[in-house]
């Protein structure tokens, strides 16, 4: 238990350090952009401009601005105001988009794990068969075809040709299904390959042969003895998988017109909404860090040989 506490403490420290680094870097970048974000938009009266500057923390020397911004963030959890979405604070925008993106991501991951592991196990158990070759070819497809191509094809097929799903919008389960599947497929493909490799390795081990010699049913052997060991690389892949899902959501939210964090982030990039953009980068950093920590801990729990460092 002590190990766990000290580990979590270290991870927290790292996360704070990382966030601080990202924050400072972004701040420097933002301030080093020549010109003012308010130039060239419309002619702004001096009084209003001063107000704007105060609101966006652009008054005072750079160092003062930095301290102010950092202080706001640390003590008040205040990420500032969005530059282009008037009257919305960054935190509000994020809060709005978060549930959508989160549910999309979770659905996609769950789908990916279930599909991937199942496919991988079947492939491994029936190695060399038509099922194996077929599934692994499909897996390569899933990995090499870009997300958005897949999504476009899916829309073509399932929205226009065979209208099962609605094209866009948000709210019902049906509407989330297609985007989640498209998001999860590449991840499922990779997981399938990982599972297959892991299973093949484990199935060749002596303790599995012992289990077979003991007369246990194939299903028991595969599910209870082989699978847990084979899943280790999958568990450690969940960290990068989350990153992949979050990245993929940027594109998919655009295609399916979902008002999640992803589309807001992309828009902030296109609209040059620096504060919103930075706020989202910080949020994504926290999300990924948390996910990676959870994965590390799970890994250490599952595999007793691993020591948490």
């Amino acid at each position, binding site marked *: 238990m*002590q*190990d766990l506490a*000290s580990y979590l*403490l*270290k991870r927290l420290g790292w996360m704070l350090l990382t966030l601080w680094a990202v924050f400072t870097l972004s701040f420097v970048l933002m301030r080093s952009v020549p010109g003012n974000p308010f130039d060239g938009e419309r002619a702004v009266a001096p009084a209003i401009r001063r107000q704007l500057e105060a609101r966006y923390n652009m008054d005072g020397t750079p160092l003062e601005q930095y301290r102010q911004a950092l202080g706001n963030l640390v003590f008040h959890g205040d990420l500032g105001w969005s530059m282009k979405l008037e009257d919305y604070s960054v935190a509000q925008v994020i809060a709005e988009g978060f549930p959508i993106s989160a549910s999309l991501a979770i659905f996609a991951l769950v789908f990916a794990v279930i599909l991937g592991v199942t496919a991988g196990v079947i492939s491994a158990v029936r190695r060399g068969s038509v099922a194996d070759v077929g599934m692994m070819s499909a897996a390569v497809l899933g990995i090499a075809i870009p997300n958005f191509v897949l999504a476009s094809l899916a829309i073509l097929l399932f929205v226009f040709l065979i209208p099962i799903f609605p094209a866009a919008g948000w709210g019902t389960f049906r509407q989330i299904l297609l985007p989640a599947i498209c998001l999860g497929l590449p991840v499922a493909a990779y997981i399938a390959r990982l599972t297959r490799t892991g299973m093949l390795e484990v199935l060749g081990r002596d303790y599995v042969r012992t289990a077979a010699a003991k007369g246990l049913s194939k299903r028991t052997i595969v599910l209870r003895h082989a699978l847990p060991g084979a899943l280790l690389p999958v568990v450690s892949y969940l960290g990068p998988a989350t990153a992949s899902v979050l990245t993929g959501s940027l594109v998919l939210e655009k295609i399916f017109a979902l008002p999640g964090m992803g589309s807001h982030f992309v828009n902030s990039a296109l609209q040059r909404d620096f504060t919103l953009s930075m706020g989202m980068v910080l949020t994504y950093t926290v999300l990924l860090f948390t996910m990676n920590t959870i994965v590390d801990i799970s890994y250490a729990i599952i595999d007793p040989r691993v020591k948490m460092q």
Partner: protein
Amino acid sequence: MIASSTPLLRVEDLQVYFPFSRGSLLRPQKGFIRAVDGIDLEIGEGETFALVGESGCGKSTTARAIINLVRPTGGRVLLEGRDIAGLGDAAMRPLRRVVQMVFQDPFASLNPRMTVGDIIGEPLKIHRLAAGRDAQLEVIRLMDLVGLNPRFLNRYPHEFSGGQRQRIGIARALAVQPKLILCDEPVSALDVSIQAQVINLLMDLQQRLGLSYLFIAHDLGVVRHIAHRVGVMYLGRIVETAAVDELFNNPRHPYTQALLSAVPTPDPRQQSTRQRIVLKGEVPSPDREYPGCSFVDRCPLAEAGCREVRPLLPEAPHATACIVEQRAESH
């Protein structure tokens, strides 16, 4: 016994300690692994000194420390009278022509991407001993010397068998014409029949070229042929040294006796009537501290005083680091 004024190699109180830390963030613990805990030995010209012991007793580390592949923590290594302990790679370079090494794993000790000719010829290049055609001829000569077919100069290590690869390693060591070769378990990874061939080759080379060897092994049987003197190691310390026949006929340290009893003899009658000494307990971890004798927990002769005082190896032809034995000797 060679009586020389300056032995080729003399090691005094060699120590190699590896630090490590343990424990959680809030309560860190530091410790040392005493891989080599004060070793003395001496090798003369044309002589073979065998260092034997179980796995993990520190023999390989000793060899590596002697040629500074691993930095010694303390002690002196006198090569031809000059202390070389702790020298850096640059300072060691000229000395590489005096002492060389043959490694244990015939598969891993050769660069898989170099031809055999390149491997054997590399020392010639580095030390500028020969160039061009002369270098190639020298490589051919060396291959011939160790019993390899020189026509396979342009082949790659993976195209040879284990025994042949070991010969390549020996040829490489011989390229600089050294006086001393450290052989780190050179036959442990080979089949038994091949082991004999390689041992014979080493002995033959010793006779022809006047080489000295520090021969490391965990198997006493292998050592009997090639060694002049033997040192027995346990947990980083030498517990007994003697001339080879003397050691085999009259082992004094209880550990040596146990080791010898495990060596099979070819005579089945003798084998069945022999008494196997089985030591109790297991080899303790090398990070424990032993103010006294490190063998104390497993030794059949252990007494109270053994825990307090560390037994020293006297300077004698047949020396034993055991206070009980030393007492028995002096009576």
